[in-house]
C-alpha cells in the first residue's frame, strides 16, 4: 500500500475508535497494597522448601495410579433445559453488550459494556473456568447462535458449514494471534474503556467467528481459532468440574488439576499458546511496577510530549511480545536440560504443569479488582445504557471499596501462590514419571523446578511492588 492510502486507512480506523487516552485505567478505583516483606519471605521460603521436599522425598508413581487419578468421582448429563437456558443467557448478554456499547451513554461507568467485558467476562469468567469448570462451553453465544441456526433453519441444509479442510500446520496459531491482539486491547490500546470501541470490536469479532464457523465448522474453529474457547479451555483443565458439549452435554467431577496431566503431549501450536497466556499474565503485572516506569523514563523520558505517547505504546507492545518469548526461551531451555529427546514432545508434555502458578498469580492479582470494580454491575444492571433507567431499583447502589480488606488479600495471595506452586510441582512430577523412564524422571526435574521457583518468585515480587499508573503526556 502507498503512504497516502495507509494514512486514509489509519484515519478511518482512528475515527472508528474514539481515542481517549486520558481515561486510561478508568476502571481502577483502588489498588492492592504491596505485599509486605514478611509475607513475601514466607511465600518465597515455602515455595523453595516445597520444591526441595518433593525432590528429596521423591516418590514413585506408575501409569495405573495415573489412570485412577483422573477417573471422575461422579458424572452425568446436563439436562437440556439448563443448557438451553445458559445459551440463551450468553446470547442475550452479548447482544445487550453490543447494543449498549453502540447506542448507550459513552461514559465508562454509565455503560454496562466496559465492566461486563473487561471485569466480568475476561477476569471473572476466567476465575469461574479455573476454579469451577469451563462454563464458557455452555454460554458461548456464537456457537449457541450457530447451532440455533442449524436446528431451526428449515430452508437450508442442516449443516450450515462448508466443512472446508483446515490446514493442520496452522493448528492453534490463529488463536495465538487473536490472544495477543486481545491482550494488546486490554493492556495497551488507548480508548479500551470507551463503550463504543468495545462494541465495535465485539461486532467485528462476531462476524469473524461466524465466517469461520461457516467455513470450517464450529468444533474445529473453537479448537483452533476462537480465542475465548481456547483460553477458557486451558483454565478449565485446572477445574474440578469437567464440562463437555459435543451433541450431548456432560459433566464430570474430578480432583482439581488432574486435567493438566496429559498422556499425549500438546501439539506445538497449543504449547506456544499456553506459554503466550502464561507470559501475558505476568507482563500484565509487570507493566504497573516502578521498575517498568523507570525503564520507560530512561527510554522515552527526553522525548517531546507528542511523540512519547506513541513510543510508550510501542514500548508496551514490545514488552507484551518479549515477555512470553522470554518465558518460552527459558522453558525450552529447561526442557532441553532434561537431556531427553525429542524436545518437541517433552515441551508439549510438561507445559501444562506451569499453568497452576499462573492461575495462582492471576487470582492474587485480580481478586480484589473483581470484588470491588465488579460491584459496578449492580447499578449498571438497572441502567445498562446509561439512560437513567432503574429496572431493578439498584441504580443508586454505591460501590463499597472496603469490601475486601488488605490483610485478607495478603493472606490470600501468599496462600494462592504457595498452593499453586505445590500443585505445579506435583503435576510436573507425575508427568515426569509418565513421560520418562524411572531413572531419568528424577534428574529431569532439576531444571523444571528451577524454572518454577523463578516463575513463582517473579509473581511474588510483582505482588510486593507498589502499583503505579504511568501517565504519558
Amino acid at each position, binding site marked *: 500500500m502507498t503512504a497516502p492510502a495507509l494514512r486514509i486507512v489509519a484515519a478511518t480506523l482512528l475515527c472508528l475508535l474514539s481515542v481517549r487516552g*486520558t*481515561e*486510561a485505567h478508568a476502571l*481502577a*478505583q*483502588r*489498588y*492492592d*497494597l*504491596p505485599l509486605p516483606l*514478611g*509475607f513475601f*519471605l*514466607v511465600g518465597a*521460603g*515455602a515455595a523453595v*522448601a*516445597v520444591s526441595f*521436599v518433593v525432590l528429596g*522425598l521423591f*516418590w514413585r*508413581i506408575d501409569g495405573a*495410579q*495415573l489412570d*485412577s*487419578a483422573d*477417573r471422575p*468421582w461422579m458424572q452425568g448429563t446436563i439436562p437440556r433445559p439448563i443448557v438451553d437456558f445458559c445459551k440463551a443467557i450468553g446470547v442475550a448478554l452479548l447482544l445487550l453488550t453490543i447494543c449498549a456499547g453502540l447506542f448507550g451513554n459513552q461514559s465508562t461507568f454509565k455503560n454496562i459494556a466496559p465492566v461486563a467485558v473487561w471485569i466480568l467476562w475476561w477476569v471473572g469468567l476466567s476465575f469461574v473456568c479455573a476454579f469451577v469448570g469451563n462454563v464458557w462451553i455452555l454460554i458461548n453465544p456464537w456457537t449457541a447462535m450457530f447451532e440455533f441456526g442449524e436446528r431451526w433453519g428449515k430452508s437450508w441444509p442442516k449443516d450450515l458449514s462448508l466443512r472446508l479442510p483446515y490446514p493442520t500446520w496452522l493448528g492453534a496459531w490463529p488463536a495465538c494471534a487473536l490472544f495477543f491482539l486481545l491482550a494488546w486491547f486490554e493492556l495497551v490500546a488507548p480508548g479500551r474503556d470507551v463503550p463504543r470501541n468495545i462494541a465495535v470490536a465485539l461486532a467485528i469479532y462476531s462476524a469473524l467467528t461466524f465466517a469461520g464457523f461457516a467455513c470450517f465448522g464450529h468444533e474445529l474453529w473453537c479448537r483452533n481459532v476462537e480465542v475465548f474457547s481456547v483460553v477458557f479451555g486451558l483454565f478449565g483443565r485446572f477445574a474440578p468440574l469437567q464440562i463437555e458439549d459435543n451433541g450431548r452435554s456432560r459433566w464430570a467431577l474430578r*480432583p482439581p488439576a*488432574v486435567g493438566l496431566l496429559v498422556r499425549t503431549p500438546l501439539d506445538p501450536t497449543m504449547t506456544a499458546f499456553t506459554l503466550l497466556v502464561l507470559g501475558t499474565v505476568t507482563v500484565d503485572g509487570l507493566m504497573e511496577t516502578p521498575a517498568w516506569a523507570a525503564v520507560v523514563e530512561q527510554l522515552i523520558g527526553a522525548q517531546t510530549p507528542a511523540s512519547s505517547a506513541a513510543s510508550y505504546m510501542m514500548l508496551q507492545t514490545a514488552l507484551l511480545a518479549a515477555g512470553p518469548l522470554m518465558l518460552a526461551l527459558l522453558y525450552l531451555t529447561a526442557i532441553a536440560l532434561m537431556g531427553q529427546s525429542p524436545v518437541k514432545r517433552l515441551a508439549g508434555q510438561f507445559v501444562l504443569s506451569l499453568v497452576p502458578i499462573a492461575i495462582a498469580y492471576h487470582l492474587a492479582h485480580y481478586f*480484589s479488582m473483581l470484588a470491588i470494580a465488579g460491584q459496578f454491575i449492580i447499578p449498571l444492571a438497572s441502567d445498562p445504557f446509561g439512560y437513567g433507567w432503574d429496572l431493578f431499583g439498584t441504580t443508586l447502589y454505591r460501590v*463499597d*471499596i*472496603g469490601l475486601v*480488606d*488488605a*490483610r485478607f488479600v*495478603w*493472606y490470600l495471595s*501468599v*496462600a494462592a501462590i*504457595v498452593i499453586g506452586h505445590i500443585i505445579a510441582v506435583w503435576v510436573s512430577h*507425575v508427568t515426569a514419571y509418565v513421560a520418562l523412564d524411572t531413572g531419568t524422571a528424577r534428574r529431569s526435574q532439576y531444571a523444571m523446578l528451577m524454572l518454577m521457583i523463578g516463575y513463582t518468585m517473579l509473581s511474588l515480587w510483582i505482588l510486593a511492588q*507498589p*502499583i*503505579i*499508573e504511568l*501517565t504519558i*503526556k
Partner: protein
Amino acid sequence: MVVTLMPNGRILRLISAAWLALVWLVVVFGNWSPADAQTEEPKRFDLRIENDRLSGDLKVIRVRRGDAVEINWSANRRTVLHLHGYDIETVVEVGRPQTMSFTARATGRFPIETHGRYHSVLIYLEVYPR
C-alpha cells in the same frame, strides 16, 4: 482416586507438618500490631502543587485504617483534584487552599489525580490495616 497418588504415610505427615509450620509463620509475620495506638487527632498533610506537580519529596501518604485524615492542598494555579476510591473531588484555586478530610475506613492504595486535560497521578494514599 487422588488418595492413591499421595505418597505413603510418612511423607504425608511431613507435608502436613510443613503446612502447619507455614500457617504458623504467616500468622506470626502477618499479624504485626501497630506501634502507635489510634489517636483522636487527625493525621495532617500539607501539600503544595506547582504546575500540576507536587513540590517536596513526599511520594506516598501512609495512614492506618480508622485514622482521621486531613490533606491540605494549595496550588499556584487552578487544579482539579480527585481522590479515587473514596471519590473526593476538590478544586484548588490560587490563594485559596482546600482541605480533603475523611476517615480512612477502607484499606488499599488509592491514586490522587489531577483532572485537567490529562489525568495524572500526583501522589498515592495508602491505607494499611491495623
